[in-house]
């Protein structure tokens, strides 16, 4: 009887061990280390390479980022960011996080809005206001810091902090921000779902997510014109203005690879956000997605 039990035990162990290996193989078969790929524009690269490539790209463009934005959007990025911050409707005494916002475009607009509020509303006492700018790229943050020094004033409604951080793994405690904004940054993230999950984590209850990103133009004729402009003109302008064809080629391609409005809204819902909606701006060239942590 003892021998029989031993036999059963060995069989069980063997079967478990075997099935684990089989299951393991089945899991990994679609995603072995060599096969984990990501899109760097139209280039298929290894997942762990994309982060480095994006980092290097932004290191190169950091000094000419404004020119790049103007070239990519024919100057319209200013209007889009205005719309985003208008939609955000910043309030005094809140904590704001702007991710991938190294150069400060969105953060400074938030600061300006808060300063304007300060002039008309009495300041809320005993509430901490703050704007945090995070970016994976130190050079971009440097640009932001330089600009902040130029415009910093004693009576500012909130201090601005700079933190080098990866959107997929934010160095902030849970529930520390009232709003999380990201403008033209999320398409550069290797694992968008991770960034959205992190956004959900660091937001306080009732916190808001706002994502501004290049999106898809539905109307066929306009899309053809837009594509023709993007693919033909933008990299050439990148060469002319910034002596850098390839970075602009990547940027144009990464726009095409990014999920459409509805699909992206689905990803935001999957990350736990409620009341997810989006607005297409400029015929869908850009979309502003919004979600709430409820």
């Amino acid at each position: 009887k003892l021998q029989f039990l031993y036999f059963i035990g060995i069989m069980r162990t063997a079967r478990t061990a075997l099935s684990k290996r089989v299951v393991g193989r089945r899991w990994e078969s679609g995603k072995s280390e060599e096969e984990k790929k990501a899109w760097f524009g139209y280039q298929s690269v290894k997942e762990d390479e994309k982060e480095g490539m994006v980092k290097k790209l932004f290191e190169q463009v950091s000094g000419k980022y404004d020119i790049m934005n103007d070239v990519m959007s024919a100057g319209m990025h200013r209007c889009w960011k205005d719309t985003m911050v208008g939609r955000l409707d910043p309030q005094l005494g809140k904590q704001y996080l702007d991710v991938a916002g190294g150069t400060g475009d969105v953060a400074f607009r938030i600061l300006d809005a808060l300063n304007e509020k300060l002039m008309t509303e009495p300041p809320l006492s005993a509430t901490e206001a703050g704007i945090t700018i995070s970016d994976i790229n130190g050079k971009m943050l440097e640009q932001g810091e330089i600009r902040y020094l130029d415009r910093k004033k004693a009576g500012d409604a909130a201090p601005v902090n700079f933190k080098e951080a990866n959107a997929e793994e934010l160095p902030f405690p849970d529930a520390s921000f009232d709003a999380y904004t990201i403008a033209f940054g999320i398409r550069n993230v290797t694992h968008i779902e991770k960034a959205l999950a992190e956004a959900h984590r660091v937001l306080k209850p009732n916190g808001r997510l706002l994502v501004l990103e290049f999106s898809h133009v539905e109307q066929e004729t306009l899309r053809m014109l837009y594509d023709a402009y993007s693919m033909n003109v933008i990299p050439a302008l990148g060469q002319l203005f910034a002596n850098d064809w390839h970075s602009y080629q990547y940027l144009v391609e990464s726009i095409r690879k990014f999920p459409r409005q509805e699909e992206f809204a689905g990803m935001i819902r999957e990350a736990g956000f409620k009341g997810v909606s989006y607005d297409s701006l400029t015929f869908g060239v850009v979309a502003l997605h919004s979600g709430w942590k409820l």
Partner: protein
Amino acid sequence: MYPGHIPTSCAQKGILTAGAAVGALLDPWRRGDLVGVLGETTGVDALSGLRDKMKETQAGRRILHERPTFDTDSVLKKLKECKEGTFGSTYYRYMESNGFKPSERPPVQFIDDSELAYVMRRYRETHDFAHTLTALNSSVAAEMVLKSFEWHQTGMPMCGLASLGGAIHLNTNQLHYLVNKGYPWARQAGQGELITSVMWEEEWDTNLDELRQRLLIPVAPLPP
């Protein structure tokens, strides 16, 4: 087609041509790369003719076959050891005093033929050699004279444009120099040996004056 090649459509080449021409004229000091872009988008026919001219001599055929290149800084450092008065030492001093590095030369990107891309690359490498030979410096007037010389040799439209267009940055004295001394010299010197057919890498220790006589490319009159 070759490392660094960027295929471009006609429309894109048009945009690059227009933009590079304007940009290079407005800021030749910081946007020298645009001069290169302009050369690439407009120079294919001329390069083809230059390549054919090179094929007519044994020296030229050798260059096209061996495809020597000079784009590493390590060789430049060695030239410091060359004797005074040689091509190598004068070239070294020219590059050092201007802070130029062979590795910083803009790469050829927009030419859609591998052999012509090499000819363009070689032409670009020899530009600094030509500076050394002719003793022309990097001022706008001197560069215009050098471009005029290169236009006579290569027929590239960019060289022609550059040898004329830079005039917007010159004063009357310099314009006088250009018309009375610079251009005539360039036409004469342009008849000399093709700069792209010379195996420069074998001439480091050659006495510079001897080299000038052999190639029939004399020192240019210097701008005011």
